[in-house]
């Protein structure tokens, strides 16, 4: 599963990527996380707040570090 984390490299963006890695490991899912830090690409997804998460080409979350349950819902 491919998940993109959008954000200009701030602390919350890192926390988001870490959260996804942790939840995926706990659930035994293989995920590939791509961090997108280039502002033009981030804006291209139409998000106004970061960190944002893209799963399967769709923005599923933006503006905060997602919760454990939210991440789990994307993985299944």
């Amino acid at each position: 599963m491919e998940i993109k984390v959008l954000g200009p490299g701030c602390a919350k963006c890192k926390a988001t990527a870490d959260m996804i890695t942790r939840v995926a490991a706990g659930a035994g899912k293989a995920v590939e996380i791509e961090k997108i830090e280039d502002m033009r690409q981030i804006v291209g997804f139409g998000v106004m707040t970061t960190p944002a998460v893209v799963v399967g080409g769709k923005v599923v979350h933006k503006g905060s570090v997602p919760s454990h349950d939210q991440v789990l819902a994307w993985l299944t």
Partner: protein
Amino acid sequence: MNADMTTPSHPAPRRDWVWHVGLVAFVAVWWLVYGQLVPVAEWITALFPVERDSHAGKAIAFFLYDVPKVMMLLTLIVFAMGVVRSYFSPERTRAMLAGKREGVGNVLAAGLGVMTPFCSCSAVPLFIGLVSAGVPLGVTFSFLIAAPMVNEVALALLFGLVGWKVALTYAAFGLIIAILAGWVIGKLKLEGWLQDWVRDIHSGATAPDAVDDAPRTMVNRYRLGVEAVREIFGRVWMWIILGIGMGALIHGYVPEALMARIMGADAWWSVPAAVLIGIPMYTNAAGVIPIVEALLGKGAALGTVLAFMMAVIALSLPEMIILKQVLTLRLIAVFAGVVGTGILAVGYLFNFLF
């Protein structure tokens, strides 16, 4: 409460009252503790082997009273602000501002700048999101100037340390500067001074709304308030202690009337000097305001001090470096010039009035 059907992770209704009762209990305890801060601070100060009226005694009492007071006020105000902000979102703000004419748009944008939740690392995508949706450049600037200038940390600290009159004055003039500066920038028609790639997005289609906002319950909003408190405290507690520590030293040791000569209303050059010194300083409101309060106590003029504070908070170099991604240097210079002029005007006005 039919939203329960669509959000399975929604907490069970019977837990809601726990939150409501908890909130009421918290505010009650808060109120009781807040009333006891002075006697407790005096009692602890008396334990130190120093005279109460000595330099050290004054500094210790100031520190012991002001640190808990500011922390408590900050908790309450940040929580309330977090709950209020849950009613706003960048997407709604954009929808409200899109196509608004200048004038009305600037006023609305400044107000929404205070209410819309976003962190400084989102300034660039937010800027582009607004401009690309057809929000005029000047209106966008009103938003971006008001957001950091009139923030809950600044208001909580001003309210706690300097008093509600100065806090309100600061908020009012912060908004006025944001409205007028944005309006002026709009009049100058500087859309051509955006970075090229931003202009391209500007002329293209508007970005689609990514995610619809999930329905929010009251408990959900409380959670966001708690989250805001935790996040802001993590960021500013060091600054508050450092700032109040500095303020305490000034209180105890700097002689009266020294500041009146350097930062008093008679020294006309003190206002521009305060702005120039303030720009490269990067601390947030939490670090500056305790120092500002102590300077006021030593005879510094209110206008000079307000100008200094606004320059530190609203015109910071790091923010300009972030904005460099979307604005050309010329446009950043205009932005700094217009906002700086507004701050100077507020400084002189206050020195003249008070």
